[in-house]
């Protein structure tokens, strides 16, 4: 992990709009979670020349309608419908914008892409999200380099690429080209109720021994130490185990797995991580959660039936309606599993997410790029944060927005983590079959029906099969 040392933590936090509540020097770096490309290096020169007009750099034709398809999941679709699309209409009076919200991205849109009838802007997300690498291979995705090099809406002297967190530029790449815009920033680790801890006088455990000791204490109060949703949400636990493995053995563990390196799953840190969590489940877990989905589990969490829940910072907005007064979301890093963990206590996962793409062969790619440019304006990004209580990749856009407690806690944790940012597992997007198999196997191993060794062996077998399958396009990452 390299990180551009010239960016101070404060600058960075300001960039993502978290300065309101963080102060003091340091070197916490969002860019440290960069997972592909060359971390922080500038992207290649733009392939398309931009017009000189900073108001309309892509030469959008206001007569052409724009079609936007939004995955209507945790963020809903109001941010697009009531905000971003309105911004677009304001910029091009009289233009028509067609808005579709769906959960079945793949079923609905794959035929349309193949037929050359793709929507101009697509929020590719959810359980049926499409294989972007496959779409890219067919040239369906517009090059976003002109977008990154276009003048920003707020300050025409600045390029868009200089207004977003560097991880955006790294994660934009598929086979070396800028094709995907990641729009949100999220923090993943274990989430707990700060108010409960305060009232009981409990400390956040830093080592595995403290973690299990707290588990015993909580058990006496009828509270479960840890739970994850076995239905629909086992991938939260797969992430958790992968991040734990990275904490034990460093980010290379995940990078090797992503690169389908031989025996990557059989690495010792991976086995240790799975064993540690399977033990927690066996001693402190409840098998009922294998049959509960994420909402049900999260409600139980809100009811203080569960202490720690492995998820990302979007949880706060997701459960906003049901959150009682005496519940305050806070993030806890994964405790030290061994005394010799490669990453010190405090390491958390920070990443960018929520993919947006522009159809290259659509009817209005210029409009699509312009739409993304408006999303990346301060007004667009700030409005998103206000509507969804989630931070975007736009630097400083969240400044002044009253962020909820959980996000503040996440910012503090990131501050404390410094350079120890756990990387995300990208095989989730690259090799969906492997990831899906993992979400199934994690339940099996957590339920104790197979041993951790068997889990690793099974995953390795599947990874080998994917590696051999020449119908699956391969991706690699260097860091």
């Amino acid at each position, binding site marked *: 992990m390299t990180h551009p040392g010239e960016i101070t933590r404060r600058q960075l936090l300001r960039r993502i709009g978290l300065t309101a509540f963080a102060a003091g020097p340091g070197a916490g770096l969002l860019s440290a979670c960069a997972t592909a490309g060359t971390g922080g290096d500038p992207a290649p020169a733009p392939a398309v020349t931009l017009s000189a007009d900073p108001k309309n750099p892509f030469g959008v034709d206001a007569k052409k309608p724009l079609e936007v398809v939004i995955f209507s999941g945790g963020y809903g679709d109001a941010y697009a419908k009531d905000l971003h699309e309105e911004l677009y209409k304001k910029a091009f009076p009289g233009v028509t914008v067609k808005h579709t919200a769906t959960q079945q991205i*793949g*079923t609905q849109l*794959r035929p349309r*892409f*193949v037929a050359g009838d793709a929507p101009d802007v697509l929020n590719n997300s959810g*359980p*049926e999200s*499409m*294989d972007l690498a*496959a*779409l890219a*291979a*067919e040239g*369906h995705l517009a090059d976003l380099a002109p977008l990154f090099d276009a003048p920003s809406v707020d300050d025409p002297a600045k390029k868009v690429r200089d207004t977003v967190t560097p991880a955006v530029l790294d994660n934009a790449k598929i086979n070396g080209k800028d094709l995907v815009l990641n729009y949100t920033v999220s923090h993943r680790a274990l989430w707990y109720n700060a108010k409960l801890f305060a009232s009981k006088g409990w400390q956040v455990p830093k080592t595995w021994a403290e973690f299990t000791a707290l588990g015993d204490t909580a058990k006496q109060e009828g509270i479960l130490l840890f739970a994850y949703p*076995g*239905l*629909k949400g086992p991938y939260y636990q797969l992430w958790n185990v992968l991040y734990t493995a990275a904490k034990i053995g460093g980010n290379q563990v995940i990078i090797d797995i992503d690169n389908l390196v031989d025996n990557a799953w059989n690495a010792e840190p991976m086995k240790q991580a799975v064993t540690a969590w399977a033990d927690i489940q066996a001693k402190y877990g*409840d*098998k*009922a*959660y*294998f*049959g*509960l*989905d994420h909402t*049900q589990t999260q409600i139980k969490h809100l009811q203080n039936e569960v202490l720690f829940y492995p998820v990302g910072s979007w949880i706060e907005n997701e459960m906003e309606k049901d959150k009682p007064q005496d519940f305050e979301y806070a993030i806890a890093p994964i405790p030290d599993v061994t005394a010799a963990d490669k990453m010190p206590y405090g390491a958390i996962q920070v990443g960018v997410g929520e993919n947006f793409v522009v159809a290259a062969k659509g009817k209005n790619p210029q409009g699509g790029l312009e739409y993304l440019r408006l999303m990346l304006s301060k007004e667009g990004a700030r409005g998103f944060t206000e509507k969804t209580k989630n931070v975007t990749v736009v630097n400083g856009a969240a400044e002044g927005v009253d962020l909820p407690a959980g996000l503040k806690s996440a910012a503090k944790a990131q501050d404390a983590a410094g350079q120890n940012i756990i990387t995300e597992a990208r095989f989730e997007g690259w090799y*969906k*079959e492997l990831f*899906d198999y993992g*979400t*199934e196997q994690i*339940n*099996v191993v957590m*339920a104790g*029906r197979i041993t951790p060794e068997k889990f690793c062996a099974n995953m390795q077998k599947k990874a080998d099969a994917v590696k051999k399958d*020449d*119908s699956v396009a391969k991706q690699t990452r260097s860091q």
Partner: protein
Amino acid sequence: MVRLRRYGFVAGFLVVPVALYSVFVISPYLQAFQLSLTSWNGYSSVVRYVGLDNFGRLLADGVFWQALRNHGLLLLVLPIVTIVIALFLSFLLNLGGGTRGAGMRGVWGSRFYRVVFFFPQVLAVAVVGVLFQAVYRPDEDGVLNGVLARLGAEPVGWLTEPGLALWSIIAVMVWQAVGFYVVLFSAGMAAIPKDYFEAAALDGAGRVRLFFSITLPLLRDTVQVGWIYLGIAAFDGFALIQVLAGDKGEPDGATTILPVTIYKTAFAYNKVGYASAMGVALFFLTVTFAVLTLRTIRREKVEL
């Protein structure tokens, strides 16, 4: 002239249905058959033919065989259980009232029962799925486990125990299907002339004997129709499984049936070619199964 008129009539009656069916059903199916020989990923403009490779891979694919086993179980258990329960209930409804007075009557309230029994049929799969998620919830907040908890029993993981999950799902399908067959069989029973029963009852035959010696044989055709309906309903089970158990047929693939696997392979993994090959395999299995069933039925008919 007469023959010409006849042919004109036949052709006139067939042209629209055959055309609609050929265009919207057969032509896509043929394309799917063609895709089963390719490694198409659903996006690519270049379709690569791989011959019978996909079918070769099927033979070594554990998930496929597991799905096939579960599918077979479903095809066997769903019709049998549903038909037995439906026959039993419709017998009670129609003939359970005894033979006193003027012939056979239904029990008191039979009309009410028939209405209620039919209700689940009108529910969309999504509705049934959500409903039974609540019923089968694995903690004490589940409807079933809540009742168990009051009786002092431990909560059961209806959908999370590999040995139990498929049965729980079959139970839902039975729950939903029985009403339709009660109505169907009731209609059949109502059509049986009353004097058959009266004569038998005069001879001192009990109701159970009435059922096995008169009702059942005379209902044979209706029951066969029911069997075929249910065979098709088993196909549709995949949506229910996706909602209740998870889209991979969790736990451990214990609830995966072929349509679940095919759907996942095609839509989540973008292996349209391979998924089509599974579909083709399923097609031939179903055809074989159907031919065997028809053979058996026909033989029985000859014996009659």
